[in-house]
């Protein structure tokens, strides 16, 4: 049975997708000609064209990327920055259609049927939009960074936009009713269900078409819900998920802000509670939200509205995060789009709900109820002391104790991915045990020899004299006698880069009272690096 002979229940919605794959690099303010990459959890998440031409690819490890391109500028991921800057791109599309839908910063989707009639056909609409966004991106120093695709259903349109991007054609329009054939020859991995597609490849189903040819009964029986979701994408039946419809009006939740919120954190804090209310309302009915309209009203009666969509059900935290991104975009965006006064009312309208199947807890751990509780508590703490005050550890690897594990700002328990592959040998690193206390910007001290002059380390890593005591706080500060010492461990870091090059030598000192510290000398100046507590 060929896939096309299966009549779809309802023809999937004609959709236009705009994709800017390098968005998180663009949002960081980097030029297209600079090699740069966004690296989070030790993996490359996005690259600039210059970095790609050096061989840096998405999914690579940090060290591999740096090996291929030593001058690579590394950018930390920041969804807030991405979303805030994206408001200017989303604003461009307001001239084409009243309603756009954002899923992640860098991707916009909207139903294409109405606008394409107005603009004289799919091709005309797509190229007009590509031109408009190109103008906006060129002003940021980027060209040829956008792909526009039109096809039946959001998934096929998304693939079409990616295809357009790779073919450097900017625009790819798949004629009505041919989206199944368009997807059929593509490798199965484009479905983006990594675990499932790995199994399918082993079963000999290497293309989307061969998977689409299976009957849905068989797929559901063998692969369950995940399989059925993937199958629906392969057959371009997405967007017509059964039981989808606008929910009854009473699910809208609104909060009045008194005094009006001018700052994002004030509004976002209210939004978080609102998202929880919405989540509770829906889950009481056994529903979950997959598309939400965020609407705000300002003191001057301005109405701003934006739709956010996610694949599958959004948790309360996910909704709150989308709201924060959007508020950030509005309140900190360009002057043309910024509301002229504070926000007095914030409304969340669940536009599309699906049956809440409950989130399955991961088979090998994963998200649990305790994680969700902890996530909410940490978010509350962020509300009290500011977002950057709550951090979580990320393993990076390095020589000094402060480099090996760094703290990154907490963004939610869902998107945690900590890699444990940083245990590769680092020449020049200090042997275990690790010191319990580290000092971020080294406290200055002086390591003295028995005659009262400062100990130095020569270019060949030899001490000028045996350390005898340490002075902290200048000549008349406290004095600590040294009972034993070890080292020095020289380290010559990033010698290929003049700006970040550091040449240091480290020394372990044991004081006569038994405590041990790690001190470092750099350009003749000693500083405290860590304490073995």
């Amino acid at each position, binding site marked *: 049975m060929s896939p096309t002979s299966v009549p779809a229940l309802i023809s999937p919605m004609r959709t236009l997708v705009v994709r800017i794959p390098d968005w998180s690099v663009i949002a960081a303010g980097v030029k297209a000609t600079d090699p740069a990459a966004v690296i989070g959890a030790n993996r490359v998440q996005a690259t600039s064209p210059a970095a790609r031409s050096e061989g840096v690819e998405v999914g690579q490890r940090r060290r591999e990327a740096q090996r291929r391109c030593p001058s690579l500028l590394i950018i930390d991921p920041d969804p807030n920055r991405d979303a805030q800057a994206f408001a200017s791109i989303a604003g461009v599309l307001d001239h084409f259609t009243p309603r756009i839908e954002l899923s992640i910063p860098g991707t916009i989707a909207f139903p294409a049927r109405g606008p394409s009639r107005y603009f004289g056909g799919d091709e005309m609409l797509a190229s007009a939009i590509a031109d408009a966004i190109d103008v906006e991106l060129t002003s940021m120093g980027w060209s040829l960074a956008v792909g526009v695709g039109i096809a039946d259903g959001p998934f096929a349109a998304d693939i079409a936009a990616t295809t357009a991007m790779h073919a450097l054609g900017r625009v790819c329009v798949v004629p009505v009713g041919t989206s199944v054939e368009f997807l059929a020859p593509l490798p199965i991995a484009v479905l983006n269900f990594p675990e499932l597609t790995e199994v399918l490849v082993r079963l000999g189903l290497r293309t989307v078409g061969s998977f689409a040819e299976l009957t849905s009964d068989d797929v559901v029986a063998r692969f369950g819900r995940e399989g059925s979701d993937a199958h629906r994408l392969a057959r371009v039946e997405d967007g017509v998920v059964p039981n989808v419809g606008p929910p009854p009006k009473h699910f809208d939740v609104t909060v009045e802000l008194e005094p009006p919120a001018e700052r994002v954190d004030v509004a976002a804090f209210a939004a978080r509670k609102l998202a929880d209310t919405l989540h509770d309302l829906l889950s009481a009915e056994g529903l979950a939200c997959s598309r939400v309209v965020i609407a705000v009203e300002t003191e001057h009666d301005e109405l701003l509205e934006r739709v956010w969509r996610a694949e599958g059900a959004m948790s309360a935290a996910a909704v709150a995060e989308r709201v924060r991104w959007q508020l950030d975009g509005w309140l900190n965006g360009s002057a043309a789009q910024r509301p002229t006064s504070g926000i007095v009312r914030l409304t969340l309208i669940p536009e599309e709900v699906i049956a809440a199947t409950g989130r399955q807890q991961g088979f090998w751990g994963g998200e649990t109820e*305790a994680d969700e509780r902890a996530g909410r*508590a940490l978010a*509350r703490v962020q509300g*009290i002391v500011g977002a950057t005050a709550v*951090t979580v550890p990320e393993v990076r690897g390095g020589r000094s104790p402060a480099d090996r*594990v760094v703290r990154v700002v*907490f963004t939610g328990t869902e998107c945690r991915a900590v890699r444990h592959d940083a245990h590769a040998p680092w020449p020049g690193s200090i042997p275990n045990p690790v010191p319990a206390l580290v000092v971020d910007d080294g406290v200055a001290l002086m390591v003295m020899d028995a005659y009262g002059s400062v100990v130095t380390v020569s270019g060949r890593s030899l001490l000028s004299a045996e350390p005898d005591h340490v002075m902290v706080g200048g000549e008349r500060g406290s004095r600590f006698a040294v009972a034993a*010492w070890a080292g020095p461990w020289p380290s010559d870091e990033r010698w290929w880069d003049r700006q970040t090059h550091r040449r240091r030598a480290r020394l372990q000192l044991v004081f006569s009272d038994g405590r041990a510290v790690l001190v470092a000398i750099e350009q003749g100046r000693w500083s405290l690096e860590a*304490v073995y507590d």
Partner: protein
Amino acid sequence: MFDTVGVVLSVSTSQLRELADRVKPVVLARENVLSISGPLAAVVPDGSLRRGSTLTIAGSGATSVALELVSGASRAGSWTALVGLHDVAPVAVLEAGLNPERVAFINPGQSARHADVIAALVGAVDLIMVDARLSLRQQEIRRLGARLRECGSVMVVVMPGTDPLTLRCTGEIGSAWTADVALMVEAASWQGPDRGHGHVQSRRISIETLGRGRAAGGRRHVFEFPSGEGTIVSGDPAIDASDAVATVLPFVR
């Protein structure tokens, strides 16, 4: 049709006992605990952290001891928050064996809302490690203690042994912090470095336990922490490596 006779469940009795403990209908306060793994369990009454209780740890080596005490519960799935304690090395937290996916560092800054921050965590985060240097009023601490008992989190108040800014030894924990169990760590000299060679490897610590209720009485335990192999060995390894050497001290209030 299905041959089940040969199937042997690969579950040990201890695992079954643990499961039975978890599902039984009545849980005594003494049994509602977060477990401590490793030899350091000996320093705390019943060898575990009772939910709702407060521990204080001070002295040279306090940071490592505190991290080691909470690591077992963290590995078992509990969340840990470090409030203040900005100088505690994230790498030490991970090396102590805490689950990196369930650790959060909170920098409460200079804000006067330290108690609010901790109160927000109580009940949601099982292990709250609090910097003894934070300024909390006695009344706030008492209120937090009541909330802890109600919600079942454990608060571990830590005074790192050395002040990194002056390199001086820190003093004892302020009297405002009331504790169910108070641990005083004393570390002997670090072993390993000589005059120029070797590296920091091991040290002997002794932990004195004081406190209320079952912790009253006062006990002292000696450990090799870390030992040369990076593990913890209780007692004097030269005498007996398997048994903790515990001496009962008179408790003077």
